[in-house]
């Protein structure tokens, strides 16, 4: 489906704002248990990729990354926040979310849309977790070993266990959110049958 450029810009801007608001308020974190929380602020990036393609996803990923960079630098709250003041950790991995989610959505698009969107949500979320942890491990090896009080050799195992526990739970949450939002939006789009923007074929 050919999308108009204007539509891609405005949808990216709006979803970028949703992601930014989630990143700078407690809304981006679902409190889980034991003080742990699930991050959901990457979900607008996945939604943008599913609705408007990988370029929109990357643009929203950039806005999300920059917001988390600025927040980590100006108002850090957690012990890991200072490491996120590095663009290699906070921005670079987020640019890949859109491409991964869009790829997953395309693979399953022919099937049921909510299912394809759910898969895209899970894949996008897992790519976010994996790449951020990888960047953290590569860029902040010394700081992380100091913080966890372990040898550098044990770091991959610790980061891997975080990826498996928190990462998989976040992927499940992302699948639920992406599937619901995309189904609701597609339903609204098709149900009201109003005129679409020019250049937007069917």
């Amino acid at each position, binding site marked *: 489906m050919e999308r108009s450029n204007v539509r891609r810009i405005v949808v990216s801007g709006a979803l970028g704002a949703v992601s930014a608001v989630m990143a700078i308020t407690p*809304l981006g974190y679902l409190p889980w248990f034991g003080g742990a929380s699930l991050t959901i602020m990457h979900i607008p990036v996945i939604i943008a990729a599913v609705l408007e393609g990988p370029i929109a996803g990357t643009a929203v990923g950039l806005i999300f990354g920059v917001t988390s960079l600025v927040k980590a630098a100006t108002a850090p709250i957690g012990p890991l926040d200072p490491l996120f003041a590095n663009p290699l950790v906070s921005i670079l991995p987020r640019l890949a979310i859109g491409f991964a989610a869009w790829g997953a959505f395309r693979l399953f698009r022919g099937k049921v849309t909510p299912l394809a969107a759910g898969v895209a949500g899970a894949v996008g979320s897992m790519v976010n977790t994996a790449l951020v942890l990888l960047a953290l491990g590569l860029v902040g090896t010394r700081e992380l070993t100091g913080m966890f009080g372990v040898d550098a050799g044990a770091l991959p195992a610790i980061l891997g266990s975080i990826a498996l526990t928190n990462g998989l739970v976040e992927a499940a949450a992302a699948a639920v959110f992406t599937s619901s939002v995309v189904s609701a939006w597609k339903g609204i789009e098709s149900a009201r049958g109003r005129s679409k923007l020019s250049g937007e074929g069917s």
Partner: protein
Amino acid sequence: MKGLEFWKHVSIGRYVESDSPVHALAPVTKYLWLLAVMVPASVSGSAPVICACAIAPLAFAKLARVNIGFLLSGFMPVLPFLGIAATFQALLSWPGDASAIIVALGPVSLSVREAVAIATMALRFAAMMTAIGLFTSVTSEGDTARGIEDLFSPLARAGFPARELALTIAIAFRFIPIVTGEFESVVKAQAARGADFGTRSRNPVRKARAYLPLIVPVTIRALERAEALGEAMEARCYGTGPATRYVESAGGAADMAARILAVAYAAAMLVVPFFLH
């Protein structure tokens, strides 16, 4: 859900208007200096380079008449983390560390190499945090978006959508207060109906489902507003011809000098370590 009013005064960064020479620089020049400090601070392992990167934002803050204490206040929550990291650095000795011991307390000792590693870690964080904090203090939202377009304009000739990216960021800035307002009204409406947002549930999927009545309406309303804005822009023929800019920020000779200095500074920071060793 606690703290319904928490996000009433959201802001990204903290722009403070002033007529200082730093404020007067073109947005792209500010971006170049931000990169000139951030890139060496994040990739370099050399202590003198990181030290220079930590000093540069403070010098600019002085020029910009931004309170240095205000700039460093963001650094305070990081101190406990640095304390823990420093303790572990001191507890775990580096293999093959033959540098002089500064302090020794029983089996725990702090060598010169460990002290330099701790100081470098703290300075690296300080450099990045003050650089970003200062950038947001001297650059308005509009300039942040315009600067992106100017920064990527060389790539635009190769097809990079610099203008579209700048517009996307500008729209995101305009939408942030709208989305915040939407979140606030939907949270209040759902809380009034007795929604507990899954506070008693530990099952992550059930928890996510409990948040759906908040996330779905806010996202859908943002998309509807985006569509209305898109239609308004198309009705005004956006994208059908060459676009003009309302604010031109070309900059004069001082601006050009600052740009050249930024490039020279970054090059020096990346090259100097090879001569030091």
